């Protein structure tokens, strides 16, 4: 008799716990709604009451607490998701950023009652400026992609300011993150892709061919999304600059070089940082992020506002009045201030000594993992190169031999309690895993991960279906993505509407 006889139940939807007759809790004020509504014109009032779930407080807490347990997270699992820098989010950053003096501040509060938070922001601006080697930093972008937008928009504003508006192309390597080309297009540019050579470096000849008077700039990460450092960066910078273009640095991989080398020193004109990566603000299941941008001297006039300045009277907001050429505003106020505070706290805790350690140990962990996996006969995309803070493993041999894809390995890893590395990115490496252990993981965790990959490869050989049908141990088995896209069900109320239509038919 099988021991496991109880199917794990799907968690009900909050809506299924709801009853519109449930009476309310201590969470809303006690008031006569109809009477208050007399103040509002009748024809502008809602006719059909909204149907938000009416659920008891315990039931809400229980529902979401149980749901939370269905997630993998850094706090519960090793999460070597390449390009995402899933490192420990120190809890101090969260508790201190939630101090009432910070959370209660209205964005338009008088500066005389805002000197505390403004001093934090000012200090952070300066630390980020120093760490990246740029001239000035603006912190309003609310994620990496918005930082990219701001950066490329500044490049555009710069060329337009110089009446250099025939420049309509942005160059992007084939391995670039999707946000790079998407951003270039949002800024009205055409995208030109350049290939990577077999060492993971940019194909300089191809680059040479593509550069011209139409070149507005190039977007690069360094180390790249291939997990290696672009050694010819100085040459590339010169080539672009000589052609009148500017260099954009995608700072998603800053964790690899913090305290080691500065993008400003490599010749970049503009950089975004992903504070939710390098400065360890939480990914939160998909944000909020924060994507401050730093610029070289020539782009300074175009920085987005507001920023924080300081003079004898104290801290003040730098607005369009002080910066008339600014590309403008990117958020209603100062971007994700609460996230900036977390990054600030993290930066204070680390200090310059700690920042250098980030790159040291992120790189140590990646190179150790790389070597251990190579020793176990896994194939690397760039076996000759040093790993940066991440590296690429290709499972193409396993795919050929056992018919198991990188995705199958990924899903089987979940069964063993490991979040999968990034799969199928960058696209140019077949059946790839982009593996980023981060500096906050221990040697023990890395060793156990290697052992597990070896074990899974054995399973692939002996019973490949174990991989193809994995995961088995999670709240759900592999999901039907095709059905998800074909029979769109994005809204409970709508699906229930259709559902009830259906059921009324039979």
């Amino acid at each position: 008799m099988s021991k496991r006889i109880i199917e794990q139940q799907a968690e009900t939807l909050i809506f299924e716990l709801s009853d519109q007759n449930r009476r309310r809790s201590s969470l809303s004020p006690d008031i006569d709604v109809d009477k208050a509504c007399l103040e509002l014109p009748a024809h502008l009032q809602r006719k059909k009451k909204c149907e938000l779930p009416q659920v008891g407080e315990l039931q809400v807490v229980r529902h979401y607490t149980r749901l939370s347990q269905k997630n993998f997270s850094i706090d519960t699992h090793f999460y070597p998701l390449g390009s995402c820098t899933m490192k420990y989010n120190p809890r101090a950053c969260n508790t201190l950023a939630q101090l009432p003096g910070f959370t209660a501040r209205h964005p338009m509060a008088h500066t005389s009652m805002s000197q505390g938070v403004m001093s934090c922001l000012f200090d952070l601006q300066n630390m980020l400026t120093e760490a990246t080697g740029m001239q000035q930093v603006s912190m309003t972008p609310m994620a990496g992609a918005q930082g990219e937008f701001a950066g490329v928009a500044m490049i555009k504003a710069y060329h337009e300011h110089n009446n250099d508006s025939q420049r309509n192309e942005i160059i992007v390597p084939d391995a670039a993150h999707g946000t790079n080309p998407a951003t270039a297009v949002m800024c009205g540019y055409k995208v030109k892709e350049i290939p990577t050579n077999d060492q993971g470096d940019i194909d300089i000849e191809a680059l040479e061919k593509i550069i011209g008077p139409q070149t507005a700039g190039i977007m690069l990460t360094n180390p790249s999304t291939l997990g290696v450092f672009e050694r010819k960066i100085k040459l590339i910078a010169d080539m672009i600059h000589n052609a009148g273009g500017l260099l954009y640095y995608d700072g998603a991989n800053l964790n690899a070089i913090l305290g080691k080398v500065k993008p400003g020193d490599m010749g970049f004109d503009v950089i975004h940082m992903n504070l939710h990566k390098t400065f360890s603000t939480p990914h939160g299941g998909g944000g909020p992020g924060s994507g401050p941008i730093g610029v070289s001297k020539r782009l300074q006039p175009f920085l987005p506002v507001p920023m924080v300045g300081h003079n004898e009277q104290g801290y003040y907001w730098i607005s369009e009045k002080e910066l008339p050429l600014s590309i403008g505003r990117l958020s209603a106020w100062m971007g994700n201030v609460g996230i900036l505070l977390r990054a600030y706290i993290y930066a204070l805790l680390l200090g310059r000594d700690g920042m250098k350690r980030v790159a040291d140990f992120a790189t140590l962990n990646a190179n150790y993992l790389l070597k251990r996996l190579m020793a176990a006969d896994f194939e690397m995309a760039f076996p000759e190169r040093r790993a940066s803070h991440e590296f690429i493993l290709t499972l193409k041999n396993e795919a050929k031999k056992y018919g198991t894809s990188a995705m199958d390995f990924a899903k089987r890893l979940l069964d063993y309690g490991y979040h999968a590395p990034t799969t199928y990115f960058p696209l140019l490496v077949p059946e790839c895993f982009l593996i980023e252990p981060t500096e906050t993981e221990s040697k023990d965790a890395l060793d156990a991960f290697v052992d597990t990959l070896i074990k899974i490869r054995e399973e692939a050989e002996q019973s490949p279906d174990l991989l193809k049908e994995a995961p088995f141990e999670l709240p759900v088995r592999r999901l039907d993505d095709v059905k998800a896209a074909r029979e769109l069900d994005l809204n409970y109320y709508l699906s229930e509407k259709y559902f009830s239509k259906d059921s009324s038919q039979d």
Partner: protein
Amino acid sequence: MPYIPHTPNEVEEMLRVIGAESIEELFDEIPQELRIDLEKSTSGLDAIPLGQSEMAVQRLLSEKAMLDGTPLCFAGGGAYEHHIPAALWEVATRGEFYSAYTPYQAEASQGTLQVVYEFQSMIANLTALDVSNASLYDGASGLAEAVLMAVRANRKAKSKRILMPETVSPVYRQVVETIVKNQGITLESIDFEQTSGTINATNLRSQLDNDESFAALVIPQPNYFGSLEEVHQLTDWAHEHGGLVIAQVNPTALALLEAPGSWGEKGADIAVGEAQPLGIPMSSGGPFIGFIACKQQLVRQLPGRIIGRTVDLDGKPGFSLTLQAREQHIRRSKATSNICTNQGLMATAVTLYLSFLGADGLQKVAASCVANTQKLIALLAQRPEFKFPFGKTVFHEFVLELDVPVDTVLERLAQEDVVGGINLAQQQNDAQAIDRHRNQLLICVTETKTDEELQFFSETLIAICSDISSLSQSEGELS
């Protein structure tokens, strides 16, 4: 070593496996001349202090937070103070939500995925539209995404012209301008009625520069001045003229005000807004969360992440990211938007808020905002010098015209630990607009204010204004 778990022995062993002498050696592919030279101040890290203990940082941050205090706040204008259920952030910041990433591995992310599916459903229900995405950065950038979406979606009009009334928040308009201008989209202003602070819905056409088609009309409700637009008439007018309708709405107000999907004959096409009022602290303006919802036929134009309900291999229900072919990581330069990281944790908070409050609770919060606002209006109306230029029919914000300069008043209020509201003139760029809003203060009142606080605020405001005006009079007399 803060956050580094390695022991010296382990480091040694790891280097041995790697075949390197030192960690430093691992950076040998980086050209030496680029390396940070800790000796040099130009290429060093001098401006960054040494690392401090958690205790020292806690002390420092506590002092800074204390400096700003927790004033009595009557400012709104896009950031609103509401009561946040105590359980909300305790659940939302559970490690499993806080420290997870975007749910790429669906099976290991059913928590986040189901939460977002519930979020989407709630936003759709609140706006009476069909579908919502998983969030945008904030209300202002969300409005820009809605504009881009409308331009893509309105294939009939094929226009890059957007009608943007001046009753939309000036900062929102600035953000939209920044984000859409590089794609050749033009924002055409529509003036408002001087007596009502709302768009004149009856002779809109006459206010436009020309008769050409437009992609969409933006309708704020309530508008920036707190006043209520004639949304039905405006929606129908836009649809008649081949434009889409973008509703820019306050989600708390939607508990009482007509939902965008039910505006006019056919309903707004896209609804967008700032969901911060739903459980997120004001936090100097961020992190907030933009929401966007639309009619089913526009779903493929939605920017950002979308979660769908599906089934697993065993037929059991589950959730996953869907329609990824719109997104930049698949479609790259042809994506509907470059957005990647969105505001996931805030979406979790909003979902929790709406679950804790429910339809009834949200109605009560909204009704309490309305009632408290009218109470303050009544108190302020006692001073004859105060004017209500746009009337008193508002949701939870209203414009008060003082007889003295707003700047001075706000500064004096700050000394009393009160955030008195928003100086409307200060937000304007051209001289005419500045003049038009001279002495105008935008005041917001939510359910958080007690009768005593309303009394205190009105008395203080009246006293300060009397004081300033008598001072300036006596100065006038003297000079």
